[in-house]
């Protein structure tokens, strides 16, 4: 059988993990031949991944592809499950990975660049593995690949702030991973299996106290990486001290993948509909705390990092509504956040580079000096706030609509709080836009734009933000199938175990 090549129904999804992983280990070897070509390797890898993921989408929408890695039927071996949600996320990861690696071609000049590109490949390999695997321990391993490479990349610049944030991130992240592993051990002790579908199948007959402890341990462990309040103390430091290209990936991909893992564990493994009300409150709390902290920031990257916490809160809120429409809205908001925040960090990267300062006040008059970058930044902020015709509008609109469908005074109050968060978000983002365009800079008004490799990815992000913003129907189908994959665990179990 075609283990590595073609399956009967299209390309084998294992290539999505295999190609970047293999290229990551080839990077040091290729470095012996030529140092100059290394930076093109991630571009090639993610171009390949994006092509594979896009060609897989039609097949996966018909039926999830289950790949048996060792040749044994599930539940006895590690298996990959390329369902709608897995393929949705791998497309998103490959897309963001491709655009950011184009950006890094000219942005990453200093330091051990070959290690940067290797770790970058590993980080996104880990992320792809997490979303595709169907085995809980395999998920842990890929998660650790993601975490360890992001610890290293946060410290890439080697300055005071980078090292300090990296060590904070490492301490919190490794405690989280240990708790997650402990939860896996407890589940294995009870059910004797590591296959997620098999655990989900057997857990229906288990007593609730005996699965509550592993659930709490696993959610706490994964919540550290997903930056759910109160486990997110590392995030603003790590995201603001990393190089801007890495901040874009950490904000756009890493926390989203963490959140995917939380949602997968909550919905598929544990049938946690009794606890989801708790997560609704947690989401609103995370949203308000993130937005209010962002409001008081003077450092642009810290502001964007806190804004990510706010967005995570919004996604948690939407997903925990536990309705088909709510879960699709949450997934839509994840896509919208990846595109919007990726664009913002990329644009901010060159604005910081040109002004040599992260202070928002130093961006005065930059709208004349870097018109394209400033325009991209402005579009990113408008999209995150939720103004039409950008992608943020349909996604936020869907969330509000999903919450309105849940009747009751409580949800009206919660929607009010969510809208309050959006108002705060609007206030601090408009302040930055005002500084960029309407404050006169004291320096010379000489135009110095970002290089072309920096502008191309920003341009593509802007195109996507506009395109999906105007035609949200383009992705509704995959969002709906992804949401039903999460909500109908019977179908998931049946498609894996046969």
């Amino acid at each position, binding site marked *: 059988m075609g283990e590595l090549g073609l399956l009967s129904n299209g390309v084998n999804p294992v290539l999505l993990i295999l190609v970047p992983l293999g290229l990551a280990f080839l990077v040091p070897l290729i470095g012996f031949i030529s140092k100059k070509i290394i930076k093109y390797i991630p571009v090639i890898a993610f171009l390949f991944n994006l092509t594979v993921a896009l060609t897989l989408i039609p097949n996966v929408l018909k039926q999830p592809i289950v790949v048996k890695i060792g040749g044994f039927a599930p539940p006895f071996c590690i298996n990959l499950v390329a369902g709608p949600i897995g393929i949705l996320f791998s497309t998103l990861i490959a897309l963001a990975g491709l655009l950011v690696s184009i950006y890094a071609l000219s942005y990453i000049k200093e330091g051990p660049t070959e290690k940067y590109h290797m770790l970058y490949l590993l980080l996104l390999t880990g992320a792809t593995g997490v979303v595709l695997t169907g085995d809980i321990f395999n998920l842990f391993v890929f998660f650790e690949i993601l975490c360890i490479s992001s610890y290293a990349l946060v410290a890439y610049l080697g300055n005071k702030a980078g090292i*300090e944030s990296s060590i904070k991130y490492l301490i919190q992240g490794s405690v989280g991973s*240990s708790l997650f592993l402990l939860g896996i051990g407890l589940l294995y002790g009870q059910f004797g299996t590591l296959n997620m579908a098999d655990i989900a199948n057997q857990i229906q007959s288990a007593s609730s106290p005996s699965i509550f402890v592993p659930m709490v341990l696993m959610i706490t462990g994964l919540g550290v990486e997903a930056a759910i309040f109160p486990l997110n103390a590392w995030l603003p430091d790590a995201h603001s001290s990393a190089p801007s290209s890495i901040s874009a990936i950490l904000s756009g991909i890493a926390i989203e993948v963490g959140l995917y893992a939380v949602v997968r564990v909550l919905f598929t493994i544990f049938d946690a509909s009794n606890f989801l009300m708790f997560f609704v409150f947690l989401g609103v709390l995370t949203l308000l705390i993130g937005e209010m902290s962002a409001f008081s920031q003077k450092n642009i990257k810290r502001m964007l990092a806190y804004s990510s916490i706010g967005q995570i809160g919004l996604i948690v809120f939407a997903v925990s509504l536990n309705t088909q429409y709510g879960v699709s809205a949450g997934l839509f908001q994840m896509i919208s956040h990846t595109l919007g925040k990726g664009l913002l960090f990329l644009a901010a990267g060159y604005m910081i580079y040109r002004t040599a300062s992260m202070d928002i006040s130093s961006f005065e008059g930059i709208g004349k000096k870097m018109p394209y970058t400033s325009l991209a930044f402005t579009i990113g902020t408008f999209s995150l706030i939720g103004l039409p015709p950008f992608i943020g509008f349909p996604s936020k609109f869907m969330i509000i609509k999903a919450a309105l469908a849940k009747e009751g005074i409580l949800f009206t109050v919660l929607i009010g709080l969510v809208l309050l968060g959006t108002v705060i978000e609007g206030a601090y983002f408009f302040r930055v836009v005002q500084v960029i365009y309407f404050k006169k800079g004291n320096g010379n008004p000489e135009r110095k734009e970002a290089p072309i490799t920096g502008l191309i990815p920003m341009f593509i992000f802007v195109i996507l933000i506009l395109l999906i913003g105007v035609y949200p129907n383009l992705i509704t189908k995959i969002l709906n199938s992804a949401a039903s994959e999460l909500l109908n665990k019977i179908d998931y179990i049946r498609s894996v175990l046969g």
Partner: protein
Amino acid sequence: MDFLSNNIYYIGAFGLIFIGLFIILVKHNLIKVIIGISVLETGVNLFLIAVGYISKGTAPIFSKPGINANQMVDPVPQALVLTAIVIGVAVLAMALSLAIRLYKHYATLDLRKIKEQRW
């Protein structure tokens, strides 16, 4: 006494886990915190091994006739622990190398004095 002897591995594992968490939360020296992480990981690994262990069990190989499959130790947790140990070594190496760089910047490992980044 029976309870103690039956569950001695679990007691030891959770003892190590709580000691590790205590060190991480209470100590201020970075090296001690890293040791705490290591102790915590050891506790989790011991727990995983204890899950699959059978008292007086044999290796899961049909090496001689007459070996009963019920008496075999579960090999899966051991494979998990092997992987977890490797991951733990990577995290430990990463943490220690960061500690060296941190010391070069601040000339101290006291986490109370390292407060460049704030909320």
